[in-house]
Protein backbone atom coordinates (compact mmCIF):
# COMPACT_ATOMS: atom_id res chain seq x y z
CA UNK A 1 0.00 0.00 0.00
CA UNK A 2 1.39 3.40 -1.01
CA UNK A 3 0.45 6.36 1.15
CA UNK A 4 1.08 9.99 0.39
CA UNK A 5 2.70 11.98 3.18
CA UNK A 6 0.22 14.49 4.67
CA UNK A 7 2.74 17.00 5.98
CA UNK A 8 3.94 20.14 4.31
CA UNK A 9 6.20 19.72 1.32
CA UNK A 10 6.83 23.39 0.77
CA UNK A 11 10.27 24.97 0.46
CA UNK A 12 12.36 25.14 3.60
CA UNK A 13 12.69 28.64 4.95
CA UNK A 14 16.10 29.93 5.83
CA UNK A 15 15.90 31.44 9.27
CA UNK A 16 18.31 34.05 10.49
CA UNK A 17 19.14 35.17 13.96
CA UNK A 18 20.36 38.61 14.87
CA UNK A 19 23.97 38.76 16.00
CA UNK A 20 24.27 38.35 19.77
CA UNK A 21 25.22 41.41 21.79
CA UNK A 22 28.59 40.74 23.38
CA UNK A 23 28.06 43.06 26.32
CA UNK A 24 24.83 44.56 27.66
CA UNK A 25 26.49 47.27 29.76
CA UNK A 26 25.35 50.75 28.81
CA UNK A 27 23.13 49.59 25.96
CA UNK A 28 19.86 51.23 24.92
CA UNK A 29 16.78 49.07 25.07
CA UNK A 30 13.19 49.20 23.97
CA UNK A 31 10.05 47.48 25.19
CA UNK A 32 7.52 46.08 22.73
CA UNK A 33 4.31 45.39 24.56
CA UNK A 34 1.67 43.22 22.88
CA UNK A 35 -1.45 44.69 24.47
CA UNK A 36 -2.06 41.87 26.93
CA UNK A 37 -3.10 42.61 30.50
CA UNK A 38 -0.19 43.96 32.59
CA UNK A 39 2.25 43.62 29.68
CA UNK A 40 3.55 47.19 30.00
CA UNK A 41 3.91 46.95 33.76
CA UNK A 42 5.72 43.60 33.65
CA UNK A 43 8.07 44.62 30.87
CA UNK A 44 8.92 47.89 32.61
CA UNK A 45 9.83 45.91 35.72
CA UNK A 46 12.08 43.75 33.58
CA UNK A 47 13.63 46.81 31.95
CA UNK A 48 14.35 48.21 35.42
CA UNK A 49 16.44 45.12 36.15
CA UNK A 50 18.53 45.77 33.06
CA UNK A 51 18.94 49.38 34.15
CA UNK A 52 20.05 48.30 37.61
CA UNK A 53 22.35 45.45 36.61
CA UNK A 54 23.81 46.70 33.32
CA UNK A 55 23.27 50.44 33.27
CA UNK A 56 20.99 50.13 30.27
CA UNK A 57 18.70 52.97 29.21
CA UNK A 58 15.06 52.44 28.33
CA UNK A 59 14.74 54.46 25.13
CA UNK A 60 11.18 53.73 24.00
CA UNK A 61 8.02 51.69 24.60
CA UNK A 62 6.47 50.34 21.42
CA UNK A 63 3.07 48.71 21.11
CA UNK A 64 1.16 46.33 18.89
CA UNK A 65 -2.59 45.99 19.06
CA UNK A 66 -2.82 42.30 18.13
CA UNK A 67 -0.81 40.06 20.47
CA UNK A 68 -0.95 37.07 18.12
CA UNK A 69 0.10 38.77 14.92
CA UNK A 70 3.59 40.05 14.09
CA UNK A 71 4.31 43.63 15.01
CA UNK A 72 3.84 46.02 12.11
CA UNK A 73 6.96 46.19 10.00
CA UNK A 74 7.28 49.90 10.63
CA UNK A 75 7.38 49.38 14.38
CA UNK A 76 10.16 46.82 14.11
CA UNK A 77 12.13 48.98 11.71
CA UNK A 78 11.82 51.94 14.05
CA UNK A 79 12.92 49.85 17.01
CA UNK A 80 15.89 48.46 15.11
CA UNK A 81 17.00 51.98 14.32
CA UNK A 82 16.54 53.37 17.82
CA UNK A 83 17.63 50.69 20.30
CA UNK A 84 20.30 48.06 20.76
CA UNK A 85 17.91 45.36 21.98
CA UNK A 86 14.21 44.84 22.49
CA UNK A 87 12.29 43.14 25.28
CA UNK A 88 8.88 41.86 24.25
CA UNK A 89 5.93 39.99 25.72
CA UNK A 90 3.62 38.83 27.31
CA UNK A 91 2.10 35.42 26.98
CA UNK A 92 -0.92 34.51 29.09
Amino acid at each position, binding site marked *: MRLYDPTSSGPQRTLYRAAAIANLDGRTMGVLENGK*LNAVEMLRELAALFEAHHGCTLRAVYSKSNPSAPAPAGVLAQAAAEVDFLITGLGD
Partner: protein
Amino acid sequence: MPFETYRIHEVPDDVLAALDYCYEQGWTDGLPVVPPVTDRVEATLAYEGRPPQAVIATHPATGLQLSVHAAAVNAVMAGCLPEYFPVLIAAFEAMDKPQFNFHGSTASTGGSAPLLIVSGPVADDIGMNADVNLFGPGNRANATIGRAVRLILRNVFQMIPGISDKSTQGHPGKYSFCIAERARGNPWPLLCEAQGYPPGVSSVTVFAAGGFYNVENHGGNTPEQILGSVADAMANYGCITLGQSIVILAPEHMRIIADASWSREDAQSYLFARAKRPVEGMRNVGKYRDSEYDKQHDGASHPLVELGQFHRGLWPEDILITMGGGDAGGHSCFVPSWSRGRGSIMQHKPIGVCIDCC
Protein backbone atom coordinates in the same frame (compact mmCIF):
# COMPACT_ATOMS: atom_id res chain seq x y z
CA MET B 1 5.22 18.75 -9.68
CA PRO B 2 4.74 15.17 -10.89
CA PHE B 3 2.99 12.84 -8.47
CA GLU B 4 6.08 10.65 -8.21
CA THR B 5 7.99 13.51 -6.58
CA TYR B 6 5.68 13.61 -3.57
CA ARG B 7 6.80 11.69 -0.52
CA ILE B 8 5.43 8.16 -0.45
CA HIS B 9 5.28 5.77 2.48
CA GLU B 10 5.31 2.09 1.56
CA VAL B 11 3.31 0.07 4.10
CA PRO B 12 2.09 -3.55 4.15
CA ASP B 13 -1.06 -4.13 2.14
CA ASP B 14 -3.21 -4.45 5.24
CA VAL B 15 -5.72 -1.75 6.22
CA LEU B 16 -5.33 -2.20 9.95
CA ALA B 17 -1.56 -2.11 9.68
CA ALA B 18 -1.86 1.07 7.62
CA LEU B 19 -4.15 2.59 10.28
CA ASP B 20 -1.57 1.82 12.93
CA TYR B 21 1.17 3.26 10.73
CA CYS B 22 -0.68 6.56 10.50
CA TYR B 23 -0.96 6.63 14.28
CA GLU B 24 2.75 5.91 14.65
CA GLN B 25 3.61 8.80 12.33
CA GLY B 26 1.57 11.20 14.46
CA TRP B 27 -0.81 12.00 11.62
CA THR B 28 -4.10 11.61 13.44
CA ASP B 29 -6.36 13.64 15.70
CA GLY B 30 -6.57 10.75 18.12
CA LEU B 31 -9.13 8.89 16.01
CA PRO B 32 -8.19 6.42 13.24
CA VAL B 33 -7.70 8.01 9.85
CA VAL B 34 -8.30 6.66 6.37
CA PRO B 35 -4.87 5.71 5.01
CA PRO B 36 -4.10 8.26 2.27
CA VAL B 37 -3.61 5.82 -0.57
CA THR B 38 -2.38 7.40 -3.76
CA ASP B 39 -5.34 6.63 -6.00
CA ARG B 40 -7.85 8.16 -3.55
CA VAL B 41 -5.76 11.30 -3.24
CA GLU B 42 -5.50 11.59 -6.99
CA ALA B 43 -9.27 11.14 -7.34
CA THR B 44 -9.76 13.99 -4.88
CA LEU B 45 -7.35 16.23 -6.78
CA ALA B 46 -9.57 15.88 -9.84
CA TYR B 47 -12.10 18.16 -8.10
CA GLU B 48 -9.69 21.10 -8.06
CA GLY B 49 -8.67 22.80 -11.27
CA ARG B 50 -5.33 24.11 -10.03
CA PRO B 51 -2.19 21.96 -10.16
CA PRO B 52 -1.30 19.91 -7.07
CA GLN B 53 1.62 22.15 -6.18
CA ALA B 54 -0.52 25.31 -6.11
CA VAL B 55 -0.37 26.97 -2.69
CA ILE B 56 -3.71 27.54 -0.98
CA ALA B 57 -2.55 29.04 2.29
CA THR B 58 0.66 30.07 3.98
CA HIS B 59 1.21 30.09 7.73
CA PRO B 60 2.02 33.70 8.61
CA ALA B 61 4.45 32.84 11.39
CA THR B 62 6.31 29.78 10.10
CA GLY B 63 5.93 30.12 6.35
CA LEU B 64 4.68 26.52 6.09
CA GLN B 65 2.53 26.16 3.01
CA LEU B 66 -0.64 24.21 2.27
CA SER B 67 -0.57 22.88 -1.27
CA VAL B 68 -3.57 21.52 -3.11
CA HIS B 69 -1.88 18.11 -2.89
CA ALA B 70 -1.41 18.21 0.87
CA ALA B 71 -5.00 19.35 1.30
CA ALA B 72 -6.17 16.36 -0.74
CA VAL B 73 -4.07 13.92 1.31
CA ASN B 74 -5.56 15.20 4.55
CA ALA B 75 -9.05 15.27 3.06
CA VAL B 76 -8.76 11.56 2.27
CA MET B 77 -7.46 10.87 5.76
CA ALA B 78 -10.43 12.69 7.25
CA GLY B 79 -12.79 10.49 5.25
CA CYS B 80 -13.88 13.12 2.70
CA LEU B 81 -15.40 12.14 -0.59
CA PRO B 82 -13.72 13.86 -3.55
CA GLU B 83 -16.72 16.12 -4.14
CA TYR B 84 -16.24 17.73 -0.73
CA PHE B 85 -12.82 19.02 -1.73
CA PRO B 86 -13.85 22.42 -3.16
CA VAL B 87 -15.43 23.32 0.19
CA LEU B 88 -12.22 22.51 2.03
CA ILE B 89 -10.13 24.50 -0.45
CA ALA B 90 -12.40 27.53 -0.17
CA ALA B 91 -12.30 27.31 3.64
CA PHE B 92 -8.53 27.53 3.73
CA GLU B 93 -8.51 30.31 1.17
CA ALA B 94 -10.76 32.22 3.54
CA MET B 95 -8.60 31.35 6.54
CA ASP B 96 -5.53 32.54 4.65
CA LYS B 97 -6.84 36.11 4.66
CA PRO B 98 -4.75 38.13 7.14
CA GLN B 99 -7.78 39.35 9.04
CA PHE B 100 -8.66 35.77 10.01
CA ASN B 101 -5.27 35.42 11.75
CA PHE B 102 -5.21 31.65 11.66
CA HIS B 103 -1.90 31.40 13.44
CA GLY B 104 -3.08 33.27 16.50
CA SER B 105 -6.48 31.64 16.58
CA THR B 106 -5.03 28.12 16.38
CA ALA B 107 -2.03 28.62 18.67
CA SER B 108 -3.67 30.59 21.44
CA THR B 109 -4.50 29.43 24.95
CA GLY B 110 -8.02 30.46 23.94
CA GLY B 111 -8.37 27.11 22.18
CA SER B 112 -10.60 28.18 19.32
CA ALA B 113 -11.56 25.98 16.38
CA PRO B 114 -12.43 27.16 12.88
CA LEU B 115 -16.21 26.91 12.47
CA LEU B 116 -17.24 26.44 8.83
CA ILE B 117 -20.72 27.49 7.69
CA VAL B 118 -21.53 26.36 4.17
CA SER B 119 -24.25 28.32 2.41
CA GLY B 120 -25.92 27.75 -0.93
CA PRO B 121 -26.73 24.89 -3.30
CA VAL B 122 -23.49 22.99 -2.73
CA ALA B 123 -24.76 21.99 0.70
CA ASP B 124 -27.48 19.87 -0.88
CA ASP B 125 -25.27 18.82 -3.76
CA ILE B 126 -22.81 17.06 -1.45
CA GLY B 127 -25.37 15.92 1.09
CA MET B 128 -24.52 18.20 4.01
CA ASN B 129 -26.72 18.41 7.09
CA ALA B 130 -28.46 21.68 7.95
CA ASP B 131 -31.18 20.04 9.97
CA VAL B 132 -31.63 17.74 12.97
CA ASN B 133 -28.51 17.33 15.11
CA LEU B 134 -26.87 20.14 13.17
CA PHE B 135 -23.63 20.30 15.17
CA GLY B 136 -23.61 16.63 16.06
CA PRO B 137 -22.14 13.52 14.46
CA GLY B 138 -23.57 11.30 11.74
CA ASN B 139 -23.29 13.23 8.49
CA ARG B 140 -20.22 12.33 6.44
CA ALA B 141 -19.81 15.71 4.72
CA ASN B 142 -20.17 17.81 7.87
CA ALA B 143 -17.97 15.52 9.93
CA THR B 144 -15.16 14.93 7.47
CA ILE B 145 -14.81 18.43 6.04
CA GLY B 146 -14.48 19.78 9.56
CA ARG B 147 -12.11 17.00 10.47
CA ALA B 148 -9.94 17.67 7.43
CA VAL B 149 -9.47 21.25 8.65
CA ARG B 150 -8.02 19.97 11.92
CA LEU B 151 -5.81 17.37 10.24
CA ILE B 152 -4.38 20.06 7.97
CA LEU B 153 -3.73 22.34 10.92
CA ARG B 154 -1.87 19.50 12.63
CA ASN B 155 -0.06 17.80 9.77
CA VAL B 156 0.70 20.67 7.43
CA PHE B 157 0.88 23.65 9.76
CA GLN B 158 2.21 21.66 12.72
CA MET B 159 -0.23 23.19 15.21
CA ILE B 160 0.43 20.36 17.65
CA PRO B 161 -1.11 20.50 21.14
CA GLY B 162 1.51 21.33 23.74
CA ILE B 163 4.01 22.50 21.13
CA SER B 164 2.47 25.18 18.96
CA ASP B 165 -1.16 24.76 20.01
CA LYS B 166 -1.26 26.08 23.53
CA SER B 167 -4.98 25.69 24.16
CA THR B 168 -5.67 25.68 27.89
CA GLN B 169 -8.69 23.43 27.49
CA GLY B 170 -9.73 23.57 23.84
CA HIS B 171 -13.24 22.35 23.00
CA PRO B 172 -14.87 19.49 21.09
CA GLY B 173 -15.16 21.60 17.94
CA LYS B 174 -11.45 21.04 17.48
CA TYR B 175 -12.31 17.56 16.20
CA SER B 176 -14.75 18.90 13.61
CA PHE B 177 -16.85 22.04 13.45
CA CYS B 178 -18.69 22.31 10.15
CA ILE B 179 -22.36 22.90 9.38
CA ALA B 180 -24.61 23.85 6.51
CA GLU B 181 -26.93 26.83 6.72
CA ARG B 182 -30.53 25.73 6.49
CA ALA B 183 -32.24 27.03 3.36
CA ARG B 184 -35.56 25.17 3.79
CA GLY B 185 -37.96 27.51 5.54
CA ASN B 186 -35.38 30.24 6.00
CA PRO B 187 -37.17 33.59 5.73
CA TRP B 188 -33.99 35.60 5.30
CA PRO B 189 -31.56 35.79 2.41
CA LEU B 190 -29.01 33.01 2.66
CA LEU B 191 -25.52 34.00 3.73
CA CYS B 192 -24.10 33.46 0.24
CA GLU B 193 -26.61 35.96 -1.09
CA ALA B 194 -26.14 38.41 1.77
CA GLN B 195 -22.37 38.18 1.19
CA GLY B 196 -22.92 39.44 -2.35
CA TYR B 197 -22.21 36.34 -4.41
CA PRO B 198 -24.06 35.82 -7.70
CA PRO B 199 -27.10 33.50 -7.74
CA GLY B 200 -26.09 29.87 -7.75
CA VAL B 201 -22.72 30.48 -6.10
CA SER B 202 -22.21 28.87 -2.71
CA SER B 203 -19.95 30.18 0.01
CA VAL B 204 -18.14 29.02 3.10
CA THR B 205 -17.77 31.32 6.10
CA VAL B 206 -14.93 30.63 8.53
CA PHE B 207 -14.98 31.83 12.11
CA ALA B 208 -12.45 31.29 14.89
CA ALA B 209 -14.94 29.90 17.37
CA GLY B 210 -14.43 29.80 21.10
CA GLY B 211 -17.11 27.28 21.98
CA PHE B 212 -20.77 26.41 21.72
CA TYR B 213 -23.62 27.62 23.91
CA ASN B 214 -27.06 26.06 23.65
CA VAL B 215 -29.73 28.71 24.22
CA GLU B 216 -32.95 27.03 25.35
CA ASN B 217 -36.21 28.93 25.34
CA HIS B 218 -39.50 27.04 25.05
CA GLY B 219 -41.69 29.69 26.70
CA GLY B 220 -40.91 32.80 24.69
CA ASN B 221 -43.44 33.80 22.09
CA THR B 222 -42.06 37.07 20.81
CA PRO B 223 -38.83 38.04 19.07
CA GLU B 224 -37.89 40.08 22.12
CA GLN B 225 -38.23 37.08 24.43
CA ILE B 226 -36.33 34.72 22.17
CA LEU B 227 -33.55 37.14 21.31
CA GLY B 228 -33.45 38.39 24.88
CA SER B 229 -32.32 34.96 26.00
CA VAL B 230 -29.77 34.81 23.19
CA ALA B 231 -28.43 38.26 24.13
CA ASP B 232 -28.00 37.16 27.72
CA ALA B 233 -25.90 34.20 26.58
CA MET B 234 -23.83 36.52 24.43
CA ALA B 235 -23.15 38.81 27.38
CA ASN B 236 -22.01 36.21 29.88
CA TYR B 237 -18.90 37.33 31.74
CA GLY B 238 -17.03 34.28 30.51
CA CYS B 239 -16.99 35.45 26.93
CA ILE B 240 -18.07 39.09 26.59
CA THR B 241 -15.50 40.88 24.46
CA LEU B 242 -15.33 43.23 21.50
CA GLY B 243 -15.28 40.14 19.32
CA GLN B 244 -17.80 38.82 16.81
CA SER B 245 -20.59 36.31 17.29
CA ILE B 246 -22.40 33.56 15.47
CA VAL B 247 -26.06 32.92 16.29
CA ILE B 248 -27.85 29.96 14.72
CA LEU B 249 -31.58 30.16 15.32
CA ALA B 250 -33.60 27.00 15.59
CA PRO B 251 -36.55 26.87 13.14
CA GLU B 252 -38.99 27.16 16.07
CA HIS B 253 -37.35 30.38 17.18
CA MET B 254 -36.98 31.69 13.65
CA ARG B 255 -40.72 31.17 13.04
CA ILE B 256 -41.51 33.47 15.97
CA ILE B 257 -39.14 36.11 14.64
CA ALA B 258 -40.31 35.78 11.03
CA ASP B 259 -43.99 35.90 12.01
CA ALA B 260 -43.28 39.31 13.49
CA SER B 261 -41.64 40.29 10.19
CA TRP B 262 -38.27 40.94 11.76
CA SER B 263 -35.41 41.10 9.31
CA ARG B 264 -31.89 39.86 9.92
CA GLU B 265 -30.86 43.46 10.53
CA ASP B 266 -33.63 43.93 13.10
CA ALA B 267 -32.41 40.86 14.97
CA GLN B 268 -28.77 41.93 14.81
CA SER B 269 -29.57 45.39 16.18
CA TYR B 270 -31.71 43.96 18.98
CA LEU B 271 -28.99 41.54 20.01
CA PHE B 272 -26.23 44.13 19.86
CA ALA B 273 -28.19 46.62 21.96
CA ARG B 274 -28.88 44.04 24.66
CA ALA B 275 -25.75 41.87 24.76
CA LYS B 276 -24.02 44.13 27.24
CA ARG B 277 -22.75 44.38 30.80
CA PRO B 278 -22.35 47.46 32.97
CA VAL B 279 -18.85 48.82 33.39
CA GLU B 280 -19.06 48.20 37.13
CA GLY B 281 -19.84 44.56 36.53
CA MET B 282 -16.90 44.22 34.18
CA ARG B 283 -14.64 45.78 36.83
CA ASN B 284 -16.01 43.44 39.49
CA VAL B 285 -14.87 40.39 37.55
CA GLY B 286 -11.58 41.95 36.56
CA LYS B 287 -12.37 42.21 32.86
CA TYR B 288 -12.70 45.94 32.38
CA ARG B 289 -10.08 47.74 30.34
CA ASP B 290 -10.14 51.43 29.46
CA SER B 291 -8.70 50.81 26.00
CA GLU B 292 -11.50 48.40 25.07
CA TYR B 293 -14.25 50.65 26.44
CA ASP B 294 -12.77 53.63 24.60
CA LYS B 295 -12.58 51.70 21.37
CA GLN B 296 -16.29 50.94 21.59
CA HIS B 297 -17.30 54.44 22.69
CA ASP B 298 -15.13 56.64 20.50
CA GLY B 299 -16.37 59.11 17.93
CA ALA B 300 -17.12 56.35 15.43
CA SER B 301 -19.17 54.28 17.86
CA HIS B 302 -22.44 52.76 16.75
CA PRO B 303 -25.57 54.71 17.75
CA LEU B 304 -26.80 51.73 19.81
CA VAL B 305 -23.73 51.81 22.05
CA GLU B 306 -24.83 52.90 25.48
CA LEU B 307 -22.81 54.99 27.90
CA GLY B 308 -21.63 53.06 30.91
CA GLN B 309 -22.22 49.74 29.21
CA PHE B 310 -19.80 47.32 27.58
CA HIS B 311 -21.42 45.67 24.55
CA ARG B 312 -20.40 42.47 22.84
CA GLY B 313 -18.77 43.50 19.57
CA LEU B 314 -18.47 46.94 17.96
CA TRP B 315 -21.62 46.98 15.82
CA PRO B 316 -24.62 44.82 14.92
CA GLU B 317 -22.90 43.49 11.79
CA ASP B 318 -20.46 41.70 14.09
CA ILE B 319 -23.27 39.22 14.72
CA LEU B 320 -23.74 36.63 11.99
CA ILE B 321 -27.23 35.23 12.42
CA THR B 322 -29.03 32.62 10.38
CA MET B 323 -31.05 29.43 10.77
CA GLY B 324 -30.15 25.83 11.29
CA GLY B 325 -31.25 22.68 13.06
CA GLY B 326 -34.30 20.44 13.24
CA ASP B 327 -37.93 21.54 13.08
CA ALA B 328 -38.68 20.61 16.68
CA GLY B 329 -37.16 22.18 19.76
CA GLY B 330 -36.61 25.67 21.13
CA HIS B 331 -32.84 25.31 21.09
CA SER B 332 -30.79 27.91 19.29
CA CYS B 333 -27.09 28.48 19.82
CA PHE B 334 -24.53 31.20 20.28
CA VAL B 335 -20.92 30.70 19.25
CA PRO B 336 -18.46 33.30 20.59
CA SER B 337 -15.31 34.46 18.92
CA TRP B 338 -11.91 33.32 20.02
CA SER B 339 -10.76 34.66 23.38
CA ARG B 340 -10.47 38.39 23.97
CA GLY B 341 -10.77 41.26 21.57
CA ARG B 342 -10.92 41.16 17.80
CA GLY B 343 -7.89 39.03 17.09
CA SER B 344 -9.71 37.20 14.30
CA ILE B 345 -12.44 38.50 12.00
CA MET B 346 -14.71 36.04 10.19
CA GLN B 347 -14.07 35.63 6.47
CA HIS B 348 -15.85 33.99 3.55
CA LYS B 349 -15.03 32.67 0.10
CA PRO B 350 -17.04 31.34 -2.83
CA ILE B 351 -16.84 27.60 -3.36
CA GLY B 352 -15.48 26.22 -6.58
CA VAL B 353 -15.40 29.51 -8.45
CA CYS B 354 -13.14 32.50 -8.64
CA ILE B 355 -15.08 35.73 -8.42
CA ASP B 356 -12.28 38.26 -8.45
CA CYS B 357 -9.34 36.41 -9.94
CA CYS B 358 -8.84 38.58 -13.00
